């Protein structure tokens, strides 16, 4: 049975790595059709927050609510798409093979047409018929974006997605984020690229040493 939600809430979220406190009671709300940019210096807990939201790691304390229900793992992960600096693609598989593998893991019904549609949308050219090992950084990130969006996720988590990309690829990424926001996705972006954040973000959440400094400040000129 599919599960959907229009809001993600964290309550008193704490994450400890040994004696290191990565998150120290983070309360935040992320809504559908909204792009939230998480800001903060290195080590402020931005990526840790994304790892918990993506169900990759368990919080030490507190909870994450997806909609009105407290859900963990399983089918919920089908509703989450993640794009990070690393493309999470197998270097010895072609683009189609990579997308087909992840599509089957996500049990997508119309997989072939979905892959064709995403390839067209993100201008994934003939290079994707070669193993991923031979692609440029920009080419890798386009296919990685297609992989992240294969399952039409409700929650899209982006961790430094624009690092090392050329202008054309950043524009394509920006358009994709706008499209996902228009579709009603909850988009959470971690980036140090101020211009990129201002171009796509609706509001910001500032973290410092694992704590929220300021929440949901609208980015000027956008919201």
């Amino acid at each position, binding site marked *: 049975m599919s599960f959907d939600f229009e809001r993600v809430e964290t309550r008193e979220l704490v994450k400890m790595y040994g004696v290191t406190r990565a998150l120290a009671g983070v309360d935040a709300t992320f809504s559908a059709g909204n792009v939230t940019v998480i800001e903060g210096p290195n080590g402020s807990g931005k990526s840790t927050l994304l790892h918990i939201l*993506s*169900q*990759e*790691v*368990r919080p030490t304390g507190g909870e994450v609510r997806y909609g009105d229900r407290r859900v963990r793992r*399983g*089918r*919920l*992960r*089908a509703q*989450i798409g*993640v794009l*990070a600096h*690393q*493309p*999470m*693609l*197998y*270097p*010895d*598989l072609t683009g189609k*093979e990579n997308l087909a*593998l*992840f599509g*089957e*893991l*996500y*049990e997508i019904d119309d997989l072939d047409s979905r892959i064709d549609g995403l390839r067209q949308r993100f201008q994934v050219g003939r290079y994707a018929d070669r*193993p*991923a090992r031979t692609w440029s950084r920009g080419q*890798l990130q386009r296919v990685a974006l297609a*992989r992240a969006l294969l*399952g039409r996720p409700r929650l899209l988590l982006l961790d430094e997605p624009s690092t090392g990309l050329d202008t054309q690829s950043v524009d394509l990424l920006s358009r994709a984020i706008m499209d996902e926001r228009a579709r009603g996705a909850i988009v959470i972006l971690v980036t140090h690229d101020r211009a990129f954040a201002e171009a796509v973000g609706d509001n910001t959440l500032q973290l410092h040493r694992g704590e929220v400094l300021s929440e949901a400040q609208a980015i000027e000129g956008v919201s």
Partner: protein
Amino acid sequence: MAWLIALKDLRVEWRTREIIFTTGLFGVLVIIISSLSFYLSRDLSSRLAPGVIWVAIAFCGVLSMSRSWARERENDAVRGLLLSPIPRPSIFLGKWLSGMFLLLAIEAFLVPLVAFFFHLDLTPVWGRLSLVILMGSAGFLAAGTLFSALSVRSRARDLMLSVVIFPLIAPALLSAVVATREIFAGAPLEETLEWLRVLAAFDIIFLAGGYLLFEPLMSE
């Protein structure tokens, strides 16, 4: 879902042939060096061969697991698997299945090679020997797959794998060596069965343990 992951591994291996060639070559080297160093006479060869077989299998197994998980580290591909909605134990099973297929393929080449260099006739023992090798490899790979997965994000991954895996699998490995020795010595089926029961117990423990522990251990 485990099959999807296993097939992905086999497709990558078919394309690169990296594990089969590097690991197989290493196994051949172990066998040739052992035969040159230890071979004294036909009488003694049946006592030496079990050790040579299992030393070759153990090292080839660790090498192939290490390489298989190194592929998961490239581009952080394993994170893609962990983020997908499949039950995480399926990842363990898939990696174990592909590891078994590759190790059995290597063993199918190495064991006859040991027989050739140590002048052994495998015809009367091949059935029981295959069973021991299958069961010994299954438990060994189950434990190895779990610890390879755990070490995938550790800097001392190769060291950790070797240091942790050998003491852990020692009882299973020793049982397999003794069972193989009994087979070559012409022991009755009942005596071999006792060791097969021990191997079966290790297989169940390692496979069930890996299946059950994979999710909680990979969630941190």
